[in-house]
C-alpha cells in the first residue's frame, strides 16, 4: 500500500466515522423522548434557528469577550511573573511551591469565594477566567526562561547588555516558544473557566443558553449550544496549536 493509498483510506474511514456518528445520533434521537435527547437533524435546525434569531451570535459575543479579556490578562501576568521568577532567584525559590499548589487546585472551588468578594458581574467572572488560565503560561514561561543557554547570557553580558536589553534580545525570544505551549494549554483552561463562571456567576453567554434550555427540557437547543461550544473550542485550540507551531520554528535545540 503506497503512502497515498494509506492516506486516502484513513480519510475515507474518517468520513465514514463522521457519517456513522451523525447516523447513530439521528437514530438515538428519534427513538428517545424529546426531553432527554434530540436527533442530529433537530439539533442542526435548532442551531440554525438560534443563529437566525440572533440569540447565538449575541451569546457567542458575550462569551468571547469574557474569554478574550481573561486569556489576555492571564497571558500578560503569567508571562511577566514567569520571567521575574526565572531571573530573580529569591522570588523563584519563594513562590515555586505556592504556584505548584495553585496549579493543582481545582479553581472551581474558589468560585464561591470570588462571588462573595467581587459579586457576580463581569469583574468577578473575569477573575475566575484569569485564575484558570494564568498557571500554564506562568509555568511554561518560567521553565523556558530558566533553560536559556548560559553562554548566550554571558555573550550578551560581555557586550555590556543591560538587564532590560538582555530580556529583550535574548531571554524573551528564547522563551516565547515555551510560553506558546502554555498559551495553548491556557486556552483550554480559560474555556472551562468561562463556562464555569457563566454557570455559577451571572448567567450570560453560551453557558446561560445551556442552562435555560436545560430548564425547559429543550434538548435540541441544549445540544445545539454544546455543539457550538465544541466548534468554538476546536477552532480556538487550532489557533493555539498554530501559534505554538509558528513559534516552535525558532525553538533552539530540542
Amino acid at each position, binding site marked *: 500500500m503506497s503512502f497515498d493509498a*494509506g492516506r486516502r*483510506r*484513513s*480519510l475515507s*474511514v*474518517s468520513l*465514514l*466515522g*463522521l457519517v456513522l*456518528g451523525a447516523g447513530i445520533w439521528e437514530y438515538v434521537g428519534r427513538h428517545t423522548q424529546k*426531553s*432527554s*435527547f434530540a436527533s442530529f437533524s433537530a439539533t442542526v435546525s435548532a442551531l440554525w434557528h438560534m443563529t437566525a434569531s440572533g440569540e447565538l451570535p449575541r451569546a457567542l459575543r458575550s462569551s468571547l469577550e469574557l474569554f478574550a479579556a481573561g486569556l489576555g490578562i492571564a497571558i500578560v501576568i503569567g508571562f511577566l511573573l514567569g520571567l521575574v521568577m526565572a531571573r530573580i532567584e*529569591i522570588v523563584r*525559590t*519563594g*513562590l*515555586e*511551591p*505556592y504556584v*505548584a*499548589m*495553585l496549579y*493543582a*487546585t*481545582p*479553581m*472551581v*472551588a*474558589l*468560585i*464561591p*469565594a470570588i*462571588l*462573595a*468578594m467581587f459579586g457576580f458581574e463581569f469583574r468577578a467572572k473575569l477573575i475566575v477566567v484569569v485564575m484558570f488560565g494564568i498557571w500554564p503560561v506562568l509555568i511554561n514561561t518560567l521553565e523556558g526562561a530558566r533553560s536559556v543557554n548560559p553562554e548566550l547570557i554571558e555573550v550578551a553580558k560581555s557586550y555590556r547588555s543591560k538587564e532590560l536589553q538582555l530580556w529583550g534580545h535574548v531571554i524573551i525570544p528564547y522563551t516565547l516558544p515555551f510560553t506558546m505551549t502554555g498559551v495553548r494549554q491556557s486556552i*483550554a483552561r480559560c*474555556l*472551562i473557566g468561562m*463556562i*464555569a463562571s457563566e*454557570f*455559577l456567576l451571572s448567567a450570560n453567554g*453560551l*453557558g446561560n443558553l*445551556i*442552562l435555560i434550555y*436545560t430548564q425547559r*427540557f429543550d*434538548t435540541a437547543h*441544549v*445540544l445545539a*449550544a*454544546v455543539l457550538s*461550544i*465544541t466548534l468554538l*473550542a*476546536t477552532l480556538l*485550540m487550532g489557533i493555539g496549536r498554530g501559534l505554538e507551531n509558528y513559534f516552535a520554528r525558532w525553538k533552539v535545540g*530540542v
Partner: protein
Amino acid sequence: MSAVPQSAPLVRPFVLNPGVRKLAIRIGTGILLLALWEGLVTWLAPSYVARPSGVARVLPRVVSSAEFRSDAKVTVVSVFEGLGIGVVLGVVVGLTMGRLRDVDALLRFYVSSFFAMPLIALVPVMTLWFGYTGTVRLVIVSFGAFLPVCLNVYDGTRKLPAQYVEVADSYHARWWNVWFGIALPASLPYLLAGFRLAAGRALVAAVIAEYLVSLKGLGYFILYDSRTFHQNEAAVAVIALALLGVAINSAAGFATRRLLPWYRPS
C-alpha cells in the same frame, strides 16, 4: 589607589546551608502571602469573607466534624473511581487507536473534539439523562479522565520506534505481545503525563458536578457554607481539595521517578 593586598578574612562569613535557606525563604514567602491575604481582606472585604485567622480558628472544628469527613470521603472516592474507569478505558482505546490505523481514523475526530471542549458544558444536559444523582458525577469524572489518558497513550504508541516492532515481528511475536509487551510499556511516560492532566480534570469535574447537581461532597460543602456566610468553613474544604490535587500530582511524579528511572522528560 594604593593596592593593599586583601588579607583573608579572619572570621568565615556566615553562610546558610542551601537547604535551610530554601526552606526559610519558602516559609517566609508563605507567611508574607498569608499576611497579605489577611490584610487585604480585613481592609477591603466584608467581615464574612474568609481570612487566615478565621480559617485557623474554625479548622479543628471543621476537620473533626462528621459532616466534613463524610463529604470529603464521598468526593475522594468518586474522584478515584472515575479516575480508575477513565484510565483503564483510556489505555485500552488509546492503545487500539495507536496500533490500528482504521480505528484511529474512525475515532480521532471525536476524541480530539471532546478533549478540546470544556466537558463541564455537558453537566446540565446529563442531569436530564441521569437525574440529579451521583451518576452524573461519576460519568463526567470518568469521561474527563479518559480523554487525556487516551490521547497521551495514543501519542506514545504512535511514537513507538519502528525497530522495536520489527524485532518483535522477526521473533514471531503475537499482536498482544506487541501491544502489551512493547507498546504499552514504551508509552508509560505518556500515560503518566496523561494521568496528571486527568487528575486535574477529574477534580474540576467532580466539584462542578457537585455544584450544579447539588450532590453531597466537598464541592457542595463549599457552596453551601459560602451561601450561608460560613466562608472560613468553606475555605477549609477548598484547602482539602487543593491538598488532594497536590497529593495526586506528587504521587504521579513519584511514580514517574520510581517506575521510569530511564525516562528523561525532554
